[in-house]
């Protein structure tokens, strides 16, 4: 009889959660993802390249037309430096959302991968953390590559900008968690249109390309509710080293979203698969 570790409660999370929800083995699910992606490495290349294309396009194109805009502290900054951190936030969002909706839906609905997992000591929260954690890791990889290029292009002017990478992870975490929770509601592949319908406007209007002040008043309020807006604001401020107390609010908003997503996902998985 081999010794199976971890069926006894250990760690805080294991003590406060109802038994059966979490076995402390989300890492095994991340291992699985690594194996399954070891053959599909091409998606990584495209994930890294896509935002870079945007960046280069802005550098060559828009950078000539619109030379300077008002930055987070009101000071003028080059337009490309204004857009770059926002693109970083958006790419963290895109990577996370697509991994956690398409990938999860397929495994959930057709491949029955999660049914197989739940027949072992693994619980729904392990699945949620493992899958979301994987999306965050991927988002992190893209963020590091993007950050490197920003550096090379001279778009990073403050040491605070080093925090862009952890913030990108937080953005990826929030979107992966919400995306996976949404994926459990999707019934057929055509409903992915709804995901697109949410992601594209968010990408365009979360002050990614223009400052909040250009939008009419009521729209400004709506935009401030968009999760990506908080990621963009956070990153833009950090990239030029303009810090202010509202940043704590942005972080809290994203963290709350992430926590809610993980909770909702594990509840949904338990409700749908363990019945």
């Amino acid at each position: 009889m081999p010794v199976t570790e971890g069926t006894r409660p250990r760690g805080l999370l294991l003590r406060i959660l109802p038994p059966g929800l979490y076995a402390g083995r989300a890492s095994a699910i991340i291992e699985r993802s690594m194996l399954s992606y070891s053959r599909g490495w091409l998606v990584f290349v495209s994930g890294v390249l896509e935002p870079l294309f945007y960046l280069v396009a802005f550098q060559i194109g828009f950078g000539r037309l619109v030379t300077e805009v008002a930055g987070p502290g009101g000071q003028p900054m080059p337009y490309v430096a204004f857009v770059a951190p926002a693109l970083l936030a958006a790419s963290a969002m895109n990577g996370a959302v697509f991994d956690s909706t398409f990938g999860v839906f397929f495994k959930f609905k057709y491949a029955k991968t999660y049914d197989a997992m739940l027949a072992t000591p693994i619980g729904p929260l392990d699945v949620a953390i493992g899958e979301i954690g994987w999306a965050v890791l991927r988002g992190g990889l893209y963020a590091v590559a993007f950050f490197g290029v920003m550096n090379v292009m001279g778009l990073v002017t403050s040491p605070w900008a080093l925090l862009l990478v952890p913030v990108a992870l937080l953005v990826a975490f929030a979107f992966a968690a919400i995306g996976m929770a949404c994926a459990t509601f999707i019934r057929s592949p055509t409903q992915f249109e709804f995901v697109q319908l949410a992601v594209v406007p968010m990408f365009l209007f979360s002050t990614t390309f223009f400052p909040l002040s250009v939008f009419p008043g009521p729209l400004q309020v709506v935009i401030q509710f968009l999760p990506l807006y908080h990621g963009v604001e956070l990153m833009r401020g950090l990239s030029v080293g303009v810090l202010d107390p509202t940043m704590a609010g942005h972080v809290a908003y994203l963290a709350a979203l992430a926590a809610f997503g993980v909770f909702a996902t594990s509840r949904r998985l338990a409700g749908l698969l363990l019945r």
Partner: protein
Amino acid sequence: MVEAKALVKRFGDFEAVRGVDVHVRRGEAFGFLGPNGAGKSSTMRMIAAVSPRSDGELKVLGMDPDRDGPRIRARLGVVPQQDNLDSELTVRQNLQVYGRYFGLSRAHVRRKAAELMGFAQLGERAEDEVEPLSGGMKRRLTIARSLVNDPELLLLDEPTTGLDPQARHLLWDRLFRLKSEGVTLIVTTHYMDEAEQLCDRLVVMDGGRIAAEGSPSELIARFSTREVLELRFPPGEQDAVVAVAGGLAQRMEVLPDRLLLYTDSGESALERAYARGVRPLSSLVRRSTLEDVFLRLTGRSLVE
């Protein structure tokens, strides 16, 4: 190992399992038989601690699945009715990753995967993806996967569906061996020969209830006669014979394609049938099997 009392499973207002009592002892092979929709899989899933019971009592390995699900599942092997292999992984990775879900060390799962691929005779396909495997190969891999944690209790939901005769016999042999090593087996099946070969004790389920319980030979003795006379007729002529043949045996089942006469002596029943002018196309005298018990208990073939 498993102790169920008045176990109930509801899906909405529909009762799939309606008060089932079973008691499975350590080291035995226990079977669930029953027609489609009888509630076998629903019962198995409750025992596997992946489906909360709606009512009744259930103890698996001495624990309550509602409270100790993960601890129970750590010691179970499960072969679900439908294969749910990981289509994004290779054969070897399927076994290794599954072992990791149980918290087994990498070195251990590596060794175990190699051993189990031998068991499932899939060694040559080790690095292949799962998707292009044949149905029977997938089934064998699913069965091998269920053994990755050296379970004490193995739940097999129609394990040999889709296997060729050779693979079935091989699996029976492996299951016998596991049993002799002390592993408890719970099997559902639609193959009566499988149940007769494999199970020490079994229950016949119908409509969510248990219709009978016992060892295969006990059930045959209790619900059937020593011998069975099977009579076949040309299409359309069977109906005319039913009225005449009724009194020839203790009991009669009318199947779409033949009549089954239950009697202690098939030969003498056949003689009496000829004496009454019954002229079948062909006749066969055989011993009663579990299939006869099944037909009787599930009322599948009563005169309509």
